[in-house]
């Protein structure tokens, strides 16, 4: 009996040492880019079997908090950290945009078969509660020919805090001063009107089932579920439907004004083909990494992500970064010291 036990222990010890070998890099993540990050870590581990990325998709709030407290090696967020959060962090965190996502208005109008056009004023008006009926002249103006019903608009928004909401309200506050003043920008806000659905699926479920409802969901979600999404008028005055190309175009349009720390909102970006309700999602990497091995691994991953990683994004319906931004980020990797 004893010898068997001893043998088991020896085997466990051997196994343990074998398992302990790959270096563990811990991360706390935003939920929006989770599918693509998970794919990346998987692919990267295939090339570098001595590395293991251990990450949790816990939301941007946790991503920022844990990275600031240095309880993880890297964090991720769907909205850039504000100055107050930057000042509070125990270590200076660098933002690295990884991919782009877009948010689209989706609606349920049984009578209308054509796709609707939305102007920024219409979207802001509907979500502020100042435009209450589908046959409002503002909506009719943008949709000549569409037979708009004389029905109350039922607004649906996210009830859970989310990067999707952040991008949506960031856009509304850029195009409507009234929104900025009354509601503001955040992952959760004090909605002037409407029902709350939990998650993309909650909003989609409510919109699909409630005639005359309008809501907003991530582009990926709308595409996968074949939900009707309208075109939105961009800052060049063109109505653009969300697509991977239109989102990358928005990022390219915004890249001229890109600050060195990449903390930027690209909603309402300039460019004829740019879709206006889009955003980066960021990795948060500490400027100083104590363990040189880890520093090397993390910068190695960043370089790979900017080259090979970008190619994997469109298959998962994420928009890849434009060339200009990739070049800027490759330079910025040099700021990481280890």
């Amino acid at each position, binding site marked *: 009996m004893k010898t068997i036990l001893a043998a088991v222990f020896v085997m466990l010890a051997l196994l343990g040492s074998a398992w302990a070998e790959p270096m563990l890099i811990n991360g706390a993540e935003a939920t929006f880019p989770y599918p693509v990050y998970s794919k990346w870590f998987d692919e990267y581990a295939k090339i570098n079997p001595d590395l293991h990325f251990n990450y949790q998709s816990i939301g941007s709030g*946790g991503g920022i908090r844990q990275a600031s407290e240095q309880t993880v090696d890297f964090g991720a967020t769907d909205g850039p950290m504000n100055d107050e959060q930057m000042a509070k962090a125990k270590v200076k965190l660098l933002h690295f945009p990884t991919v782009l996502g877009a948010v689209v208005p989706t609606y349920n109008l049984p009578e209308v078969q054509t796709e609707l056009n939305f102007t920024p004023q219409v979207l802001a008006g509907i979500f502020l509660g100042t435009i209450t009926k589908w046959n409002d002249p503002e909506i009719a103006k943008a949709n000549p020919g569409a037979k708009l019903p004389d029905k109350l608009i039922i607004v649906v928004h996210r009830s859970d805090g989310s990067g999707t909401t952040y991008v949506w309200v960031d856009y509304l506050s850029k195009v409507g001063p009234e929104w900025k003043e009354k*509601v503001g920008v955040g992952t959760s806000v004090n909605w002037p009107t409407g029902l709350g659905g939990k998650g993309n699926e909650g909003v989609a479920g409510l919109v699909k089932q409630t005639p005359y409802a309008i809501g907003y969901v991530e582009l990926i979600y709308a595409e996968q579920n074949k939900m009707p999404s309208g075109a939105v008028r961009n800052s060049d005055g063109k109505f653009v439907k969300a697509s991977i190309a239109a989102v990358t175009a928005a990022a390219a349009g915004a890249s001229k004004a890109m600050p060195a720390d990449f903390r930027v909102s690209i909603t309402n970006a300039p460019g004829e083909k740019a879709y206006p309700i889009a955003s980066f999602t960021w990795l948060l990497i500490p400027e100083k990494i104590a363990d040189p091995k880890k520093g090397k691994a993390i910068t190695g991953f960043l370089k790979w992500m900017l080259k090979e990683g970008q190619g994997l994004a469109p298959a998962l319906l994420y928009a890849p970064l434009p060339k200009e931004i990739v070049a800027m980020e490759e330079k910025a990797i040099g700021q990481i010291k280890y």
Partner: protein
Amino acid sequence: MVLFRRPGVSPADRLFRATVFTMAVSVLVITGVIAYELVRNSRLPIEKFGWAFLWGTTWDPVAERFGALPFLYGTLVSSALALLIAVPVGLGVAIFLSELAPRWLSDPAAFMVELLAAIPSVIYGLIGIFVLVPWVRNVLEPALSGTLGFLPLFRGAPYGVGMLTAGLVLATMVVPFIVSVSREILMAVPHSQREAILSLGATRWEMVRVAVLPYARSGIMGSVFLALARALGETMAVTMVIGNRPEIRLSLFEPGYTMAAVIANEFTEATSDLYVQTLIEIGLVLFAVTILVNAVARLLIYSVFTKVEVRE
């Protein structure tokens, strides 16, 4: 039994006593630690808002102005509504199963009812969204506003989601608690009670009303309180159908919000310290409400079981 009460008779007995005592105490310790941690981690909002937090009605995460009243209201009203529906139904089922149903039906039916309690709440939520919400919007709410529309409770646009639907889903979820506990308690009522009144020529209904229910009253109350505690803490199913709007509206057709739902919804993306701690304080308020309800329920159940034991 007597041996058991005298400590120190054998070392094995002492060890047994110590073990179960530690287990019992650990429950108290865990509850205490939860309360302590909830208070400790909600210092910022307690200092900033004080007691006014309990009756503040604004919930603005952007401006960081927080008040808990809409959530407190939503939790209490949705739970009360659930009980209003679930108590008569649950009690009816329990009476049928214990007094009227033949044995071959009673046991399997009771088993099925208890199975209802094992369904995950997210399933109730999904059924709520896909089955109940359209039905409420297209059938129930128009019917209610058509007949009882003179009451402010049944006015407004039929959204489908809202306080009424949340109450219905919660009622379905708590009925099994009422049925299964009440049935056990009704069956514990001594047969002599029933025989006595039947021999006086009472009908079945009179027997239940006069001889059985009064005897089981406090135990049934206990089952109702248990159901209430369950309803107060329910999160997932409620948030999926209540509409998640932090406002106090009289009409049951209007959307509302509950304490458990707002914590689940907003905790993951809450970035500022004050925001996170305010959500924890909501948890503290919910904890206090639930503890109160649970304590009352425990006392009631305890009293009925000891009484029954003594008389038998």
